[in-house]
């Protein structure tokens, strides 16, 4: 079993947001999650990554051999869960270099690997940045500070490329990207695809999916997956929107 989400319920403060999510992801699969604003997509992503503000009051998440809900966010990251944020966070005064060097070595320590020294780290980082068409200067700059929206998203994908996670969750990585940036991000993602690595791609738009070709598409609405299908479901949503699905769901 790679990832199995069963009957997941989550709330923030007094508001129930996720109302029984069931999702099974096998190694190498790409799942797209679509749905109108406010349906709970970012909440699902955050709960998977281990954000503490959300209280899980029912359900279970198994990831590899782990009970994911028992683990802190940093342990999950070290075990290969990665969330590319809808809104990457600015951290003034902390350089991308120091941040990623620390993060990469934390993960290597968890895997029993020796730490990378600054020289080897830089070499690796510059290689990955080149593929994402990022300027080497970005390594010296404070994490996301003064970055454009597109640069922030690209920086998250860079981090993903560095950490080589097993499960990549991307929360609206495509929103706010122009066509070129979208292509670069999609190429970065495609370069990471493998039989062992799985993706959950949250998006509103088909355009990223055209590049990434998901195996499954799910529609999230009001905290539940109301429909699942193949890539053709994304095309249907692009033409017809969510309304007909929502109406059909609410009639039942």
């Amino acid at each position, binding site marked *: 079993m790679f990832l199995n989400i069963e009957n997941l319920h989550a709330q923030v403060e007094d508001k129930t947001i996720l109302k029984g999510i069931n999702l099974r992801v096998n190694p190498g699969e790409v799942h797209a999650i679509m749905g109108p604003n406010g349906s709970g997509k970012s909440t699902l992503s955050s709960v998977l990554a281990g954000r503490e503000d959300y209280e899980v009051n029912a359900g279970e998440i198994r990831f590899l051999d782990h009970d994911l809900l028992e683990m802190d966010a*940093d342990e999950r990251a070290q075990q290969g869960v990665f969330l590319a944020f809808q809104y990457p966070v600015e*951290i003034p*005064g902390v350089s991308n270099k120091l941040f990623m060097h620390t993060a990469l070595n934390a993960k290597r320590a968890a895997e029993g690997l020796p730490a990378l020294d600054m020289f080897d780290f830089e070499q690796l980082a510059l290689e990955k940045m080149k593929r994402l068409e990022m300027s080497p200067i970005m390594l010296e700059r404070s994490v996301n500070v003064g970055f454009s929206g597109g640069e922030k998203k690209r920086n998250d994908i860079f981090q993903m490329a560095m*950490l080589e996670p097993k499960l990549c969750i991307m929360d609206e990585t495509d929103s706010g990207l122009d066509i070129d940036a979208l292509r670069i991000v999609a190429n970065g993602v495609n370069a990471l695809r493998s039989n062992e690595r799985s993706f959950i791609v949250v998006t509103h738009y088909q355009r990223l999916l055209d590049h990434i070709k998901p195996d499954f598409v799910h529609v999230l609405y009001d905290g539940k997956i109301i429909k699942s299908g193949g890539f053709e479901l994304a095309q249907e949503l692009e033409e017809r929107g969510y309304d007909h699905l929502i109406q059909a769901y609410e009639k039942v």
Partner: protein
Amino acid sequence: MTTLSKPMKKFSPLAQAAMDYYQSQAKQLMQAEGEGHAVTAFRQAALNRFLEQGFPTRKDEDWQFTPLSNFLKTHYAFNGVSRIDEAAIAAVKPKVDGWHLVFVDGYFSEILSDDLAGMPSGVSLESGKDALDFEQGFRVFADHETDIEQDAFGMLNAMLFDDGLFIELAAHVRLAKPIVVSYVQTLASHANTTRCKIKLGRGAQLQLIEQYVAIDAGCGFENSVCEIDLAEQAKMSQVIWQNLPEQGMFFNNQFIDLAEQAQFNTHYIGLGSAISRHQNHVQMAGERIESEQNSICFARNQQIMDTRTYTGHSVEWGASRQLHKLVLADQAIGVFNGMIKVDQKAQKTDGMMDNKNLLLSNKAQMNAKPQLEIYADDVKCSHGSASGQISADQIFYLQARGLTKQQARQLVTLAFLMEPLESVADHAVRDWLQQALSAAVTPYLN
């Protein structure tokens, strides 16, 4: 019977006992110096003022958040024999290439200081003790006496200073390496009272690093006053590193006069002492002066850290920059008080004062008072102060990349504290400060 024009101030028994004690110490010093010495009248005048005004209390607006009762409880000694552990002193010197000078328990130590024979000509260096041997020698340290003696610590300093440092650079003299002064305490409950004077001639340049630290049982009362005088186009950068033990007492008061086109940059880093109070008074009395004042304070447990600046713009086209950052943990108290005053003639002034504070505990307390007083109409001035907690979004972001919560908090807190170091121009000095700050603070971050 005499009638007094003013009723005598009433002092608490604690304050009165301390006043009696410091009076007796001043009298001993005056006796030793001899009645005929010119400095005696100077000390006596300060003593008279001190006996009249006493120590400030929480009723004094400038001392509202800085209670002195813990200071008054101990009567700090003015004599004592320092045990000089050369290796230990060498180990605490800043890891910076420079001309190193060492003071032990308030007195200049020639043996522990570098041989200054290789210094370029045009540099005069003299200990305060040597200067005091001259009949009128003390006067070189007393240009701002009225301002210095505005508070009890200034008066105490006048009554009791017995050593210090005089540095003068002739016009256009530039020192390639910094002068690094270590004030090392080795005795418990000892008073170290020093005065410094730094004078730069036209176009001269100096980098000065001062550190206040302790070894062995060292844990005392540091009371220093410093006058800094920059002629036209002179340039000085200063770093003050204060990391005395947690029970230490630190009072430092600087008076900085800047002439046309002078550039002055100072960084104060406060980490130690039970009570610490660092003050700058900057007078920008010439066109196109640039001044920069920064501070970094990290306070924990019951520490009280008080940072104050006064910046006076009296002539056109002055630029002043300030960034003051405090991190407060546990029940620590932070105080920032800053004033930018712009005279009517000081058009085109560009003044900026920023104070940012990070509270790591909800029992910590920050008192900030940034102030502007502007009498000119064509100026650009701003001031601000903000206090907050570590952002949960930042911590989650870092954790989501595999950093533990503790690593994440350390990284964010250190980054917050380090920001003012970006304007330390000398890379070697900045590297030393970054490493030293990280090493000093990290153990207390969890």
